[in-house]
């Protein structure tokens, strides 16, 4: 006999069966978080076996215990290349916490001494200051709590995306149940999404592989969100382009571009379910910038090529307009990368967003401004 170990049929007891239950999806909570990792069902048997009802225990489908793999930075996750660690920095790790602690302690002491001093001078004044400081502390504590919530939510999203990537690559069967449950959880509270989710559940069949299921979800649930995100990107890009074209000096350009970009990233994150606050969106911005920096060479070449060819046309008109259009395209690129980072399900098919159409829209809108304005003044003369 060869060493190929194909398995023979096995009869099982009907009572032992567990069919994936769609209702369960609405009840899935975050506590199940660590369970998903694609794995194969292993079974080592040769002869047909009929099972007895008493010997069979039924386990819920969703719970698949698997070893946790370590989390790799998402922009490195694409390959298995081992990145050598950079040289350990000369300052020890504890220096900055120590500096921070010193400052905080000093501040607290300063405040306490200040309050004690005030109290000795006048009781009412002391109470008033105490109240004021209390309010400030409360505000800070509140902000910090929110900041942590935001960070948690964002990291949940990127965790989900990593999971989705793993599932899609593995192309297994029946492992995506948990993941889909979490995605459904993420969106079911949102108005207008429920019927899309229902459509997805109706279309799913037990013979769909994990990849099929993800494609279905992407097509039925994520697509309108993607369209909306793209719309926002185009809109913000146009705004940026126009503002830069109209702004009188260079410094203002920078400020405007930065402001619109941050706004864009936050909008997209909220759309996909991240809802970041101000501080946590800083982390997001960092990620987007990293993603931009690591963007594939090909993508960059394509973009820049279009920019050079198309841009020279505009540049012939005015360097300032060209600059504006450039900022617009840059904003669009930021938007596209923000979409890739904020989407809880990775872009898997050929529905990857691209900035192809954006540049045309920007030029049209910039042109529109200059086309309209002269005609406004021209009219009274006629």
């Amino acid at each position, binding site marked *: *006999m*060869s060493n*190929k170990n*194909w*398995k*023979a*049929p*096995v*009869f*099982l*007891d*009907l009572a*032992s*069966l*567990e*069919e*994936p239950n769609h209702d369960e999806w609405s009840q899935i909570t975050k506590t199940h978080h660590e369970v998903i990792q694609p794995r194969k*069902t*292993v*079974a080592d*048997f*040769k002869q*047909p*076996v009929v*099972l007895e009802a008493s010997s*069979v*225990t*039924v*386990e819920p*489908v969703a719970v*698949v215990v698997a070893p946790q793999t370590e989390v790799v930075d998402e922009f490195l996750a694409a390959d298995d290349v081992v990145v050598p660690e950079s040289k350990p920095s000369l300052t020890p790790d504890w220096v900055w916490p120590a500096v921070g602690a010193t400052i905080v302690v000093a501040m607290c002491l300063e405040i306490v001494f200040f309050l004690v001093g005030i109290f000795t001078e006048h009781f009412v004044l002391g109470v008033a200051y105490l109240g004021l400081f209390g309010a400030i502390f409360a505000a800070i504590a509140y902000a910090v709590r929110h900041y942590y919530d935001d960070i948690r939510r964002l990291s949940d999203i990127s965790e989900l995306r990593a999971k989705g990537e793993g599932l899609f690559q593995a*192309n*297994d*069967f*029946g492992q995506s149940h948990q993941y889909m449950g979490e995605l459904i959880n993420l969106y079911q509270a949102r108005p207008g999404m429920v019927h899309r989710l229902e*459509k997805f559940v*109706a*279309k799913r*069949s*037990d*013979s*769909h*592989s994990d990849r*099929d299921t993800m*494609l*279905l979800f992407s*097509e*039925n649930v994520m697509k309108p969100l993607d369209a909306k995100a793209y719309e926002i990107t185009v809109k913000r890009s146009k705004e940026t382009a126009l503002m830069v074209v109209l702004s009188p000096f260079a410094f203002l350009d920078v400020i405007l571009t930065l402001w619109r970009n941050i706004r864009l990233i936050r909008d997209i994150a909220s759309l996909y379910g991240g809802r970041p606050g101000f501080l946590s969106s800083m982390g997001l911005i960092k990620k987007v910038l990293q993603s931009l920096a690591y963007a594939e060479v090909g993508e960059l070449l394509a973009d820049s090529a279009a920019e050079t060819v198309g841009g020279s046309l505009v540049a012939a008109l005015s360097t300032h307009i060209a600059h504006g259009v450039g900022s617009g395209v840059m904003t669009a690129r930021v938007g596209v990368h923000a979409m890739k980072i904020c989407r809880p399900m990775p872009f898997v098919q050929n529905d990857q967003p691209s900035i192809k159409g954006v540049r045309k829209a920007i030029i049209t809108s910039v042109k529109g401004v200059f086309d309209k304005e002269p005609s406004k003044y021209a009219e009274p003369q006629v």
Partner: protein
Amino acid sequence: MTRTLDRSVRLAVTGLSGSGKTVFITSLINQILHGMEGEQLPFFEIVAAGRFQGAKIIDQTNLHVPAFRYDKAMQCLMVEPAIWPQATSGISEIRLAIRFKDQGMIAKRFDRVSTLYLDIIDYPGEWLLDLPLLDMTFAQWCQELTEMCEQEPRVSLAQDWLAYMEKLDAAEPASDEQLREAANLYTQFLFETKKSEHGLSFLQPGRFTMPGDMKGAPVLEFCPIPHLPEQCAQFSKKSLFKVMEQRFEYYKNHVVKQFYAEYFSSFDRQIVLVDILKALNIGSGSFNDMRRSVESVLKSFQYGKSGLFNRLFNVKISKLLFAATKADHVTPNQLHHLESFLKHMISESQNNIAFEGVAVDTMALSSVKCTQAATSRFQGQPISCIKGVPKGDTKEVALFPGEVPTEIPTQDDWLEERFNFIEFRPPSLHDIKSKGVPHIRMDRALQFLLGDKV
């Protein structure tokens, strides 16, 4: 204007006998007719994108061909308890009109609804094996069959016929009685090999086991002559050999060629259905036989300009789909095993066809899904299994059906009773009126076959 923009596709559904052509066609029609619901065909683009505007069975263009009885086939599936539709015994044809919102450059502008006409024909799979005969002389055919009959299980099954032929002399004239008897014994031998316990599929000529409207015609009264002497070409005109040869040539020219010229020209899409599980079940002999059949059929379907089929009938097939049917008989996580097994099995033919510029794909599908996927525990391990009612039974069972190999089994692998894929009864569909028949990957098959036309 409206007429010129409409399109038509002729789909050839090919498959050896018992591979599920009739059920496939029935399900295909059913899925398309129920396309408006949109839930069953998520991977068929026009349906998923909401461009589908309805479909209808319309009158076929070839009025002399019997109509494919879709209603009858559906009735079989919808009675309680459901039964599989009868196997095909003759040719039949059906024409569907599919209305959809056009995405073409011009049509899109006018928000036009276009129509795609889809012609499907059903015919006995047995006839397919007549195709390789066209490329052979009678002597070559005899040679091939002699070789085949030296191996089990054919040796023992052909005993009667071989013994009778032993007594005849190919060089001497034979009486009509003798000819008839020889053909009769040969036909019996073919029927014997076709029985489910032997499950052989390389049965030539195809009309012997499935005569259609030719039952009892003298053209079917011939058979190969085993151990043909070398100098047979010089035999007299009245000799057994010459008479047989003449009938063989007549069969080729008037039966086979005519059939394919009439129905198979002007086809532009083809699907080849293969029932791998059945062949695996019966064993090495059946499996190798099926493999040989599929290969030789594909060889005669040579898709380029040089191919025999093309030369004779001027067919321009642009898309070819190989489908492993009855994918619901294995657990869903083994669908891609089934697919890669099929790919291995036909890799050579597939390469040749793809080389000729034909789009080729392989797929595992199930026209009517009889089982449900489930999971259970076996010896402490999670195990995925399927649930359904076995053929000839009334009680539902749950089983892990065994594994589909991903590579072609070697001779050693057949020793044990390794493969035992159980056949299932069709699911209870009597309340299915408002929905399409459950299926596996029919939508992907539709997308591949029709996707570029709509």
